[in-house]
């Protein structure tokens, strides 16, 4: 695997390999010294064209835990504001010979284009409303830890599917892992033709009790002014996941950041069924695993820095 551009590109085996790797990093995370020397001397560029807290911070921390040198570029305050094109920015950063570029961009296909412009491994940290593969991987990781396997597990993804790259990546990832997915939301926020990705479609929460996992999506305020929903109040009345609608045996997930009182009630967020904090923790180890798989794993691993041609195995504290 040269790049991580989409979930679509991954086989179930590749997904499982990343998750297994993440398990071993979780073990490292329980030690006092949480850093390993795997990527020592190698450079990771993180290039974010959109605001992000958890994705950018967890990729940054993942690179540091692997001992890589990190260059973190945000569009705000950079040459992007001076009108530099994506292609030129990538060429500039590629001059530092990075091993990986992690990119978040507001438009679909950006990561794929970047992969064509640089020798570095490219990680898609979200491209428009297209894909967010690292989020899907950390969600699968979280669920696998809880349930052992996703085979036959029924998952409902509820909310603004139309504008959500998380919904798209997760729907595909959950499906590849054997889960049965239903997407649920008002007809204005469910893209036409989504069922061809292999999911059921529902326009109400009726029947949600069949789900073992309820995955709520962020509902943005501007959807109201664009007439997708008449009001957030009406949306919440029909689609909000609260403790009345969530049964004690169901698991609740959300990619964050949450609009408390819109897609989720405060009680639901803080309920024992909520995996939201576990998802954030999983984000770090899964992103470490992604960088490891791309830069040090597999046959095509470049020569390791220092003594041998193989990368330093994890487990030796730096």
């Amino acid at each position, binding site marked *: 695997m040269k790049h991580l551009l989409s979930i*679509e590109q991954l086989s179930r085996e590749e997904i499982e390999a990343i998750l297994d790797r993440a398990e071993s990093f979780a073990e490292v995370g329980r030690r006092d010294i949480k850093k390993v020397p795997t990527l020592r001397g190698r450079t990771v560029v993180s290039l974010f064209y959109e605001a992000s807290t958890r994705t950018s911070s967890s990729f940054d921390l993942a690179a540091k835990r692997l001992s890589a040198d990190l260059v973190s570029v945000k569009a705000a305050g950079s040459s992007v504001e001076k009108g530099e*094109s*994506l*292609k030129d920015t990538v060429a500039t950063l590629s001059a530092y010979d990075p091993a990986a570029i992690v990119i978040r*961009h507001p*438009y*679909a*296909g*950006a990561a*794929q*284009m970047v992969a064509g412009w640089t020798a570095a491994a490219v990680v898609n940290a979200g*491209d*428009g*409303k*297209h*894909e967010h593969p690292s989020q899907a991987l950390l969600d699968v990781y979280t669920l696998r830890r809880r349930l052992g396997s996703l085979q036959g597990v029924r998952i409902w993804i509820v909310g603004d599917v139309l504008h*959500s*790259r998380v919904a*798209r990546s997760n729907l595909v990832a959950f499906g590849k892992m054997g889960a049965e997915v239903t997407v649920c939301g008002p007809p204005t926020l469910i*893209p*036409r*033709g*989504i069922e*061809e*990705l292999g999911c059921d479609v529902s326009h109400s929460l009726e029947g949600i009790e069949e789900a073992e996992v309820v995955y709520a999506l962020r509902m943005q305020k501007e959807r109201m002014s664009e007439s997708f929903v008449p009001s957030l109040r009406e949306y919440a009345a029909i689609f909000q996941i609260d403790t009345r609608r969530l049964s004690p045996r169901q698991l609740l997930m959300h990619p964050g950041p949450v609009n408390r009182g819109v897609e989720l009630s405060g009680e639901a967020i803080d309920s024992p069924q909520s995996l939201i904090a576990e998802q954030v923790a999983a984000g770090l180890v899964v992103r470490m695993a992604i960088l490891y798989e791309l830069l040090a794993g597999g046959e095509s691993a470049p020569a390791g820095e220092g003594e041998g041609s193989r990368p330093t195995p994890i487990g030796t504290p730096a």
Partner: protein
Amino acid sequence: MSLTDVLDVRPGEDAHLVLRRATVLDPVVGIDSVHDVVVRDGKIAALAAPGEAETDGAEVVEGEGLHVFPAFFDPHVHLRTPGHEHKEDIETGTRAAAAGGYCGILAMANTEPPVSTPADITSLREQARAGASIPVGFLATVTRDMQGTELTEMVELREAGAIGFSDDGLPIADAGVMRRALQYQHLCGGNIALHEEDPRLSMGGAMHEGPVSAALGLAAIPSVSESTLVARDAALAGYENARIHVQHLSAAESVEIVRAAKAAGVQISAEASPHHLCLTDEEVRSLDPHRFKMNPPLREERDRQALIEGLRDGTIECIATDHAPHQPEEKDVPFEQAAFGVTGLETAFAALHTDLVLPGVIDLGLLVERMAGGAEPFDLARPSLEPGAEANVVLCDLGAEWTVGEDGYESRSANSWCAGRTLTGRVLMTVAAGQVAFRLRSFSLGVAA
């Protein structure tokens, strides 16, 4: 009537040619046999028995195994002049057209500034007489500067030589303005070519709405964005007894509406573009904006099939490229940010021959007929091989394979939807209004006899 009575071209020498023993096909006139084609004094001088034509002083081209068709006519080209000459100009655009086998094209008016005044038309016609390889005509905008609110001075524009009118690139969103234009057509004449798209339905879309857009998460342009406006304008044209030409049909529903309007007696003509006839939105999965981002967007297989059926039954009388040149910096960006449009003049015939004729979807005669079908909706003479007609002739090698872009392009821009593809069928020579407008460099001609 000849094309140069109305269109403008750089003056040149009339060719004197004998295309010997070529297979001559003009389905409209009913010719399909081997002849010597004699071109002289701007006309098809004779179709002689094979090997029998007098060659006195003519350049003789050995045409055995090659095909001669009436040259093609494209009613929908963006020459980007004035204002965007870095993408295309009259010289490069007409050269690209000649290389594609065209003897005439119509240029769209969505330039910068748009072609909205008689002086704009006069200036473009002068430039065409200075630099156009083949006859070119210019449309003027329907509304002033394409604002969609006030009509241009359509009578004076016609007097200056505007072939017709179009706000192409944008729809005429206001039904009231559209209706006035159709009423006014009874005074000024000239067809009105329409880019049919309801901007409120296609708002911000980058591709066709369907399973592929759902999978890619791209904002999408639904088929009804086009078909509802086609229906509106067919109704208005019927009501006002006016004439419209619907550009680049892309959706099955639109084809059905045009078919029904024709059956009801509405004066409506329609075109389809080679990329819509050959490709579907599945291509967009590559997220390659250079080849696959255009408006209207590539749609689904059922739409493509409906367009092909429309070509067959005459609902769609012509193929038009919507040749839309762009520079790399407008395409080397993520799909949603990239400019709409692909080039098509140099590949239209070869692509349709490769994708539709060779697999047996349509026959060669139908393709040849539709490739020249764009003249009549604009009151221009259809290119013909009938002896005595203006010499508008294309010589093709239907067996020749070539890779698009390998030797560069005549167009100033490289955003060809066929880039990198190997096509079968190549234009070797184009005669437009009696002049040799193009010959393939590697194609060696016979010696003068």
